[in-house]
């Protein structure tokens, strides 16, 4: 049911012991570490790239190299060993690591040597570049200290959700519920333009009863939530961090 | 204790005291016993009246007025019998009535089966 292409393993349900990429990244087993890196990479490469582009004002080419280089360094220098979930969130820690990596001296030489050999996953930098222009983020606005954090968080959430939607789509297709997914896509994912579609309109379009639309949407949203939580769990160190992150990603923030 | 009993006791005490202050008037000293006795009775009557009133009517201002009226009337009777000393008898007598009227409203319980 769950597509296995190197994304992080077949963890579609909670196993007896929660697999965590943060923990696995410190494992002695190289295959395990590789898998951990893949998971973290999938979750974080896009926000890191966008962050490097805007916060550090690098060109797309530089940003690509820096992004790939960062993740390699993450593994090689075991940067996650120093991560303490009680002191900060993982993404804050990673962002700070990105900052320090970039501001270190002699970046150029190191980058050329390592570029590109860490990732087993195709990183679609062009797509990321497109997204940047679509969100029309004003670099000048990153001046205040909170903004980098918020920006990074938002990009990370965007990345996570997009990824989970893909997984959701695959699952729905596999279970013969493509209509369900289509409704979800139309109502929650796509931007409607002027006005959001109503349930009646959706029902008419798909030849369903309105109550079906309500039920199907409810079902898909539940599945989406489940998938988000599962993927999130993989990149958290422990239960406590996971709960905090779940609340922050999915919850309503009075901020 | 209940209001009527409170009225009786307080009226008696105040009446006796009130009567006792007649000692400061040399002219009245010879009739001290009678004055004190009469004054005590006056106080008791005022106290009983105020106590019963307080049982029926729960209002401090009204209780004071009632006490004032009863005290005044009783004092007037005494003064009339004395053929004089109206001011000396009416003023303190009315005030005793006021005190008893207030006290029976404010303190004491309305019925034997008291609810706090």
């Amino acid at each position: 049911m769950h597509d296995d292409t190197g994304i992080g393993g077949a963890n579609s349900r909670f196993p007896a012991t929660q697999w965590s990429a943060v923990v696995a990244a410190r494992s002695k087993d190289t295959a395990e570490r590789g898998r951990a890196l893949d998971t973290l990479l999938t979750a974080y490469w896009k926000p890191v790239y966008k962050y490097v582009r805007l916060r550090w004002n690098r060109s797309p080419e530089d940003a690509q190299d820096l992004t790939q280089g960062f993740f390699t360094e993450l593994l090689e220098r075991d940067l996650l060993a120093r991560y303490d979930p009680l002191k900060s969130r993982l993404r804050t820690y990673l962002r700070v690591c990105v900052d320090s990596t970039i501001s270190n001296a002699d970046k150029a030489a190191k980058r050329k040597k390592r570029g590109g050999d860490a990732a087993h996953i195709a990183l679609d930098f062009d797509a990321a570049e497109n997204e940047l222009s679509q969100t029309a983020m004003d670099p000048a606005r990153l001046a205040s200290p909170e903004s980098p954090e918020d920006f990074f968080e938002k990009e990370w959430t965007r990345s996570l959700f997009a990824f989970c939607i893909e997984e959701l789509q695959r699952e729905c297709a596999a279970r013969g519920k493509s209509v369900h997914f289509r409704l979800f896509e139309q109502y929650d994912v796509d931007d409607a333009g002027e006005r959001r579609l109503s349930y009646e309109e959706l029902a008419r379009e798909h030849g369903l009863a309105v109550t079906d639309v309500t039920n199907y949407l409810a079902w898909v949203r539940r599945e989406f939530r489940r998938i988000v939580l599962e993927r999130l769990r993989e990149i958290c160190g422990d239960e406590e961090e996971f709960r905090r992150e779940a609340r922050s990603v999915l919850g309503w923030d009075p901020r | 204790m209940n209001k009527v009993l409170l009225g009786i006791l307080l009226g008696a005490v105040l009446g006796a005291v009130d009567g006792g202050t007649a000692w400061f008037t040399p002219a009245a000293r010879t009739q001290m016993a009678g004055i004190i006795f009469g004054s005590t009775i006056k106080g008791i009557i005022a106290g009983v009246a105020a106590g019963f009133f307080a049982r029926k009517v729960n209002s401090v201002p009204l209780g004071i007025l009632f006490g004032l009226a009863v005290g005044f009337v009783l004092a007037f009777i005494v003064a009339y019998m004395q053929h004089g000393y109206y001011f000396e008898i009416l003023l303190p007598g009315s005030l005793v009535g006021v005190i008893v009227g207030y006290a029976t409203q404010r303190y004491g319980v309305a019925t034997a089966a008291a609810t706090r």
Partner: protein
Amino acid sequence: MKFLSNSALERLRAGADTPDLGGTPYRLLERVARGGMGVVYAAEDTRLGRRVALKVLDLPDATGELAARLVREARVLARLEHPGIVPVHDVGRLADGRVFYAMKFVEGQRLDEHTASVKSAPDRLRLFLRICDAVAFAHARGILHRDLKPANIMVGPFGEVLVMDWGLAKIIRESEPDPGCGSEETVVELARTETRDEDSTEGSGRTAHGAVLGTPGYMSPEQARGDVARLDERSDVYSLGAILRQLVSPDNASIAAPRPLAAICAKATAENSADRYASVQELSSDVSRYLDGLPVSAYRETYLERVGRFYRRYRVAILLIAAYLVARVLVLFLARR
């Protein structure tokens, strides 16, 4: 991969988080607040046509531990039928597996917001007495609140007081068998949940730096130390004392509190639990006595203070008698002339 706009993110987030009340008799109205373990929503009970509050577990709960705790919170509330304790109506599980319970929807203000509008000190003290009533009731049923603070107390439009958020409550004494808890298993499970409670890190005052069970400022010293074995009614007495202090001098000693009241607060918030009031009843009866102008057990008044108190209590009677004496003296002088 599809690009998600910012508004799409918001919709997805809302869609994923909003509880699906299908299959329950409730209709979602709006989100109200977020507590330690769950989110509180306003909803309509479609059967009875009344507004209720739903507390829904919003944290992921792989082991079922959190669900058990929420259910336990509901069960604790169900035992406490008192006008000062928020009544619970229902408990259940949503379609997505999240556990919830339904309780009375409380309209009103939190205590800290409300007291700004209560100018009269006796009124505040009477409010405090109502809070004590509710807590004493819970203690009589063998339940400690453990998280008493102004934010957890609601005051309704008629001055009625409701003690909320019993998520950290501890059952110290099984005063009666848990209804519906007939089997041994469930009792054991409850007990296990109980111990897990102590180990758990969930708390309303929790920070990113670690687990604190309760809220600093209102939490008793033994609770702050994590000395769980020693927790009893007096921990709640401490919290109530802190609340009283807040009520009596909200700006923190800009206006000095009367000495008997200050002494009551000090006794209630004594560092050592043995020095505090032994029960909430003792605390509230001292406050009651203060309101009635009687001496309080916490404070040894000077002779002068005693006279002053006596005077205040019997002021009118004293003045009347004084008036009588003045009249008497006046009469005597006039007679002499």
